[in-house]
């Protein structure tokens, strides 16, 4: 099922949680809504589910306007961060709940519901746990049951709100792979919310980066990592270093010297900020157009060395990555040029 969010605005009291958001989700896609807390990602998910109503704008399921349909009519599978399993029901009853509450004519028989629950438990790799209660399960198992329950109603869209947020790191990684497999096996259109960029980049076909109630960028993991279109995305996804610069005569300047980075995509002249990844730099021996600085701090990070450089008389600092064997010590002078970079005009 295709889902189209069209110019949606959502206000709580008078506080706008989403400003004019539009998003096309293709059928069968696995999409991540990624952003810091307060970015509106959960609100967007709840709007798609029908747990909230948009203040303005439409949400289409296929070519039908679903904006004012109730959550029951939308037939979505929703998985909550804290599972929201019914604690007084067994695992099988939890999974069968959505079938049990169907109106008489479309309700499967008890035996069928039971069979479906068993099938789904096998799908989520928890065979034999039908008669357990949620309190008897681990966090990871509960989230699997919650997903099985959501899939039992054969939803058009699967929506997951920080599905792994309450789990520890190792279980998270394991469930991530598992969710990808389930998605490939069932082909549900799936949207999940996360604040964990690693999770989003690894799992999703496309990542929707959000900030302050707006969509900053939509793209594949490679798109958002390699070609961020806004300072926020550059700063939020992956490590980045920034340096205040000036754009003039088709060149990037750091305190009155061009640093060998020609402007190619038409950024306007004026003050700007240079963004680059600390590990995407070329070290240079002599500085005829480069960034040069003095090492003020150095720390070992896994297989590399991170050094902090003081640029232009100590007013600015940037961080770059060096090979372990590099002989940089305190006060040594290092010259480099970013291999991949972007300048954004200073607002």
């Amino acid at each position, binding site marked *: 099922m295709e889902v189209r969010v069209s110019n949606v605005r959502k206000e709580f009291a008078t506080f706008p949680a989403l400003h004019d958001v539009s998003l096309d989700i293709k059928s069968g896609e696995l999409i991540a809504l990624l952003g810091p807390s307060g970015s509106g990602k959960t609100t967007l998910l709840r709007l798609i*589910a029908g*747990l909230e109503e948009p203040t303005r704008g439409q949400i289409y399921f296929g070519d039908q306007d679903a904006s004012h349909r*109730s*959550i*029951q009519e939308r*037939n*979505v*599978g*929703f998985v*909550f961060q*804290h599972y*929201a*399993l*019914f*604690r*007084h029901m067994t695992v099988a009853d939890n999974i069968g*709940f*959505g079938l049990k*509450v*169907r109106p008489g004519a479309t309700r499967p028989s008890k035996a069928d519901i039971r069979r479906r629950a068993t099938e789904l438990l096998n799908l989520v790799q928890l065979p034999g746990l039908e008669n357990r209660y*949620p*309190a008897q399960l681990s966090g990871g198992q509960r989230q699997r049951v919650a997903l099985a*329950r*959501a899939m*039992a*109603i054969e939803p058009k869209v699967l929506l997951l709100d920080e599905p792994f947020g309450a789990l520890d790191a190792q279980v998270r990684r394991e469930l991530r792979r598992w969710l990808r497999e389930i998605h490939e096996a069932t082909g549900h259109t799936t949207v999940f919310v996360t604040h964990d960029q690693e999770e989003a980049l690894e799992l999703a076909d496309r990542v929707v980066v959000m900030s302050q109630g707006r969509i900053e960028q939509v793209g594949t993991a490679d798109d958002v990592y390699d070609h961020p279109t806004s300072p926020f995305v550059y700063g939020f996804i992956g490590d980045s270093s920034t340096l205040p610069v000036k754009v003039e005569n088709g060149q990037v300047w750091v305190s009155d010297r061009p640093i060998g980075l020609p402007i190619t995509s038409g950024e306007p002249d004026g003050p700007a900020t240079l963004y680059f990844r600390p590990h995407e730099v070329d070290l240079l021996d002599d500085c005829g157009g480069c960034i040069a600085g003095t090492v003020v701090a150095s720390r070992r990070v896994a297989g590399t060395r991170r050094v902090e450089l003081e640029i232009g008389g100590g007013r600015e600092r940037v961080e770059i990555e060096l090979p372990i064997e590099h002989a940089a010590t305190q006060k040594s002078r290092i010259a480099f040029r970013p291999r991949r970079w972007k300048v954004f005009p200073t607002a």
Partner: protein
Amino acid sequence: MAEQVTSSNPGRYATGSAATAERLITRIILMGVAFAFLAIFLVMPLVIVFTEAFSRGLAPFLENIADPDTLSAIRLTLIVAAISVPLNLVFGVAAAWAIAKFEFKGKAFLITLIDLPFSVSPVISGLVYVLLFGSTSLLGPWLKMHGIVILFAVPGIVLATVFVTFPFVARELIPLMQEQGTGDEEAALSLGANGWQTFWFVTLPNIKWGLLYGVLLCNARAMGEFGAVSVVSGHIRGVTNTMPLHVEILYNEYNAVGAFAVASLLAGLALVTLVLKTLLEMRYGAEIAATRGH
């Protein structure tokens, strides 16, 4: 190393033993005070109620219970409880639901209103109805014209009882429902359940122990209420006397055995309530622990 051991060990020993001794003494004093207080103010009166009731043996006790006026008082008390408890059950669930699951203007005001019967003297609660429905009130002549009798009759007693007992269920449920939040309800709705199914299959099972507990307290108070009922009842023997009122009348007539016999029934009810409440608390405690683990 050795120095460290000698310097740290005695210190730990001294503070540890001192702390324990202090705690033990405090504990004994506190427990002693609590038990003595309970013995003097609760257990002794209770024992006296029962010994007085049976002071002349079982036959006079039964005779007094079988008295038509006493039977009528028991019947009226049961009727009043049977009407006011279900009313407050429905009201309590509705109010707790509204307060715990929705945001709306005037919520704080509603919570204050629910607490009102706790903060107002029961006599005032009764008097309000006299002022409202009495023959000198604004509504009085109109009621008289239409032949509606509220005061000094069953409807007045029920109204006063409902007023006095309405916080019990709501007060019990509000914190429980607030703690549970709306996640389970949202999950049920997303799975296609309608509002009624959500309430019946999800909300009600989640609150059932708290609800039962609230109903029990509400019932105990409904049967035992004296002040408010006294004002609106009119004390007509065999007609508008509830059990607590009947106890007073019998006592004022120097019928000690009769008074204590009826009182022992009320006390027995209180004991049953206490036992049920304790059992529920044991059950309810396990449930809360399960909720926390959830």
